[in-house]
């Protein structure tokens, strides 16, 4: 067990460093989708809820577990759906209607930075 705690601490610390490293220098435009995307990712706690509910052996644990599973699933599904909708809007669309200049897709992406 001791050994597990120690290794867990390594995993935790490395993930922290990795998270910081990855988010460093993101453009402002992505702040909201990133917030929402990470929001969906921490919905992983749903697994914990599933384990509680799955191993529940009395109605009380079942009740807590069920509520937790519902809330966790809402976090996961809603979070990913909202993020996807946001990001969908970011993608390049065919220039609509009468608008003039049509630029290449490569250009469009380049400007994103």
């Amino acid at each position: 067990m001791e050994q597990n705690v120690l290794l867990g601490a390594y995993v935790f610390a490395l993930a922290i460093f990795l998270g910081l490293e990855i988010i460093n220098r993101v453009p402002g435009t992505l702040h909201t989708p990133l917030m929402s995307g990470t929001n969906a990712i921490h919905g992983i706690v749903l697994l914990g809820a599933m384990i509680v509910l799955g191993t529940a052996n009395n109605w009380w644990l079942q009740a807590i577990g069920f509520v937790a599973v519902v809330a966790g699933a809402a976090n996961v599904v809603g979070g990913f759906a909202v993020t996807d909708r946001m990001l969908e809007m970011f993608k390049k669309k065919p220039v609509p209607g009468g608008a003039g200049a049509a630029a290449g897709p490569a250009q469009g992406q380049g400007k994103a930075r």
Partner: protein
Amino acid sequence: MIDNWRDAFVDLAYFAASVLFIVGLKRLSSPASARQGNQLAMVGMLVAVVATLFTRGFENSNYILIIVGIALGGALGYLPARRVKMTAMPQMVAIFNGMGGATAALVSIAEFSHKTDIPGGEAVSIVLGTIIGAVSFTGSAIAFLKLQELMSGRPIVYPNQKPINAALFGGIAVLSLLTLVLYDGNLTLARVLLTLVFVASLVLGALVVVPIGGADMPVVIALLNSATGLAAALTGFVLNNQALVVAGALVGASGTLLTLLMARAMNRKVTNVLFGAFGGGAIASGAAASTGEAKPIREISAEDAAVPLAYAQRVVIVPGYGLAVAQAQHGVRELADMLQERGVDVRYAIHPVAGRMPGHMNVLLAEANVPYDDLYEMDDINDDFAKTDVALVIGANDVTNPAARADTSSPIYGMPILNVDHASQIIVLKRSMKSGFAGIENELFHDPKTTMLFGDAKETINRLIGAVKAA
């Protein structure tokens, strides 16, 4: 043997899910690959959820509950997420974040209530997970209520705010310590104490967020988001589940950094957001705003404003929070299309913190199908204002305020702004001379090159469209 394979499969799936989260987050943080990143994370989540169904020790009768729970929760998440208006995104994120916080707290409590031989490290994780999860839950709920305007968005101040919060915080700390000291001998009592910690944390989460103004909510949500991540990681320790630890820690760390980046982009300190109103700046600016009325301004009618727009070579549209409030994005798009058909070069200048959440303007204009290529980030367009005939400022204020460049006493001094004042002519659409989010006066409106077109942005734009047609 079969069971060994089963365990190995679950472990491997969790490992794969962790890697998918990492790669997903990495891609999420670059504009070109963001959507793909989100989808990778989705796949990771699916893998992890399916794997969890294969965990050993589940009661057969509980599987149906799990499936129903996931279906119910999924529907509760999915339907509003697909339907909600783009402008209501922040409150959606808030409510989902609250759900995650609740889950973490409930899981922690449940573990404490049925496990017996709990090692010290796990007990600490349980208590912290309960507190952080609960605070994140009610904090996010209040943020939701405020943004949804089910509750006043203004900072709500109640008497003795600070002492009450401090007392609550102290109470939680003491109860937590007691729980940790007692649980080894008297687990039943410790369980009761943990419930008290939970309740007190729920109250604390609400009380901390109530005094914060609606405009600061994006920062608060980002912070609570990172808190939920941390709570998830703590739950991972308790369950000895590394996928939770990795994903939770990733979100905890990246969320914290994101909070700081967002706060910096709007020139706010996180501590200010959490523990104070706009501070000295608000008072100074109130005074400035009142004396400001004396300075001259030039009003213009929609018909008169249409002429320079229709005959300009280059127009830059500067959208701001007022555009979102008025829901004028579709009108703006129509106006821009008309101008472009007439041969005018129309572009949009997007300030990183225009509106009330980062990327607000991008999302809003994207909703109205404005071609992404017409949107220019601040740094890319700031030098072009000097070559611009008309800058059309729609419901933007602070992000155009030249005081940020020059006036060291201004509360927004140092915030990068759009160089709207370099354009040959400036037309500002807003309802009154009232100030924007920062509560300070804007010299731009008194610039001799500036004319004001008062009225709700949506209506004014419609009148402009009519007038351009006629021009």
